[in-house]
């Protein structure tokens, strides 16, 4: 595959992985916790590195998953003990992220891990960091990791499809039926952590939030069907990555930045033009309603 094709594939996988996970976050009104987790996983990555002395995929996933869930638990605890929920997220998010930044300075210069990289990512480098097995080049590591996390998250959503749906719409009924709503909550937090780690190299901690939230928020405007919303969210995320890459090459700007901007553009289009929930169609309906009232 060519260099550009690998970048597009990486971007599409980031969009799809974050898209399916983010759709659930949007419906559960948990966009802010994604912001928190996307930053605190840095601590998990640093811890995993300090333990294993390598930037290997699996220890990073485990470290980030653990810190992501710790983040969610701490936020929940502070929240239920009377701290205002926005403040709870703010406190946990900044302290754990800062701890990650401080610990990052223990890591030597020779390692491909620094604050700027963690925050912004660099998808342009992805194709050069490849996985080799028995001297065969198997393609970029990031693609393997993203592919694995995408399949994992998709499998979890399909397995618990009914349960996620009910516990999001009506957690009380879900609990009364014996559906483990707390387990599902932390499972989703784990999925968010995995998606973030897998996307870290490509888009970094800040822009991954765009990939998690914006496609879901866009899909929410376009469909009234739970399953379709998840699928559409993945498609929008993937589409934004492709459009973003094309623009980045054309204008010679940051690829990840351009991908996130494309997400924003797609959202803006849906916000105005969605057939059901868009501003234009609402305005049109009001106008024709007034007209029909005037003539009748």
């Amino acid at each position, binding site marked *: 595959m060519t260099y550009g094709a690998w970048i597009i594939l990486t971007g599409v996988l980031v969009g799809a992985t974050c898209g399916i996970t983010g759709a659930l976050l949007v*419906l559960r009104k948990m966009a802010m916790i994604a912001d928190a987790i996307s930053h605190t996983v840095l601590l998990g990555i640093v811890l995993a590195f300090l333990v294993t002395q390598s930037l290997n995929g699996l220890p990073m996933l485990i470290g980030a998953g653990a810190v992501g869930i710790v983040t969610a638990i701490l936020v929940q605890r502070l929240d239920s003990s*009377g701290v205002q929920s926005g403040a709870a997220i703010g406190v946990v998010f900044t302290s754990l992220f800062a701890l990650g930044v401080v610990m990052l300075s223990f890591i030597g210069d020779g390692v491909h891990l620094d604050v700027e990289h963690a925050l912004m990512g660099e998808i342009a480098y992805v194709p050069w960091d490849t996985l080799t097995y028995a001297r065969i080049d198997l393609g970029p590591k990031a693609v393997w990791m993203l592919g694995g996390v995408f399949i994992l998250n998709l499998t979890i959503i399909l*397995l*618990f*499809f*009914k*349960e996620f*749906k*009910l516990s*999001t*719409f*009506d957690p*009380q*009924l879900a*609990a*009364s*039926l*014996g*559906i483990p709503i707390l387990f599902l909550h932390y499972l989703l937090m784990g999925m968010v952590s995995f998606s973030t780690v897998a996307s870290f190299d490509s888009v970094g901690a800040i822009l991954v939030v765009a990939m998690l939230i914006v496609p879901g928020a866009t899909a*929410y405007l376009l*469909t*009234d*069907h*739970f399953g*379709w*919303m998840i699928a559409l969210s993945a498609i929008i995320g993937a589409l934004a990555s492709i459009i973003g890459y094309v623009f980045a090459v054309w204008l010679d700007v940051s690829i990840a930045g351009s991908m996130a901007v494309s997400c924003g553009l797609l959202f803006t289009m849906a916000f105005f033009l969605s057939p059901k929930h868009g501003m234009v169609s609402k305005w049109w309906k009001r106008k024709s309603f007034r007209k029909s009232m005037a003539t009748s």
Partner: protein
Amino acid sequence: MNALTVKNISVTYDKQPALEQVNFSVPQGSLTGIIGPNGAGKSTLIKAVLQLIPKSSGDVSVYENPLKQERNRIGYVPQRSEVDWDFPTNALDVVLMGRYGHIGMFKRTKKKDKRWAADCLAKVGMESFADRQISQLSGGQQQRVFLARALAQNADIYFMDEPFAGVDAATEKAMIKLLQEWKEEGKTVLVVHHDLQTVRSYFDHCLLLNKTPIAFGPTDRTFTYDNLQKAYGGALSILAQESSFLGKGG
């Protein structure tokens, strides 16, 4: 036989007692109104019984078994305001959620579940709204969808949290008719209720509650001025002046 036995339930919120030492047993085939002033812990009681919130003490048995063993015999209708009506789904799908307990984890909904849900929707007169996005339903229609979902659960004992709040008169009438049918089929129904005027005509049993039970038993014996006075305190005299809900004796 008792459908539900509640022993010594206490619930504490932020170190404030919300419920204290609640004891009562509900006979099978009864329709019970849970009555009490705002903040009396009516919803809290239902949630504590169903183990949706932690309780500081107490025990619940359903048909003489621990609640956990009988989950599929329990139907629950939360307050309408407690769910997100902008959720992307339609009326039929909400009713179908009532089948999830029977379908079980990891399994998909089948055609026969959908048919069952459609039948339930028809029983509440909402069949023509099956494909309607739920945010586009009126309050009464949303409550009917909830009732259809309860029907789909096909439970033996139902807990309903203010099902008549914000519904139109026709819907309320249709709903109470259905609840009375359930009762005749031997199902047990507990309803958190606000409107004191309709208590006598709707319910055969009453639980008067204000953090702790004031009275429980057949409506004739429990829904009296003295008990209401105990439950509502000063607020009752205003209520009583406005209406004649206490019947001849009031």
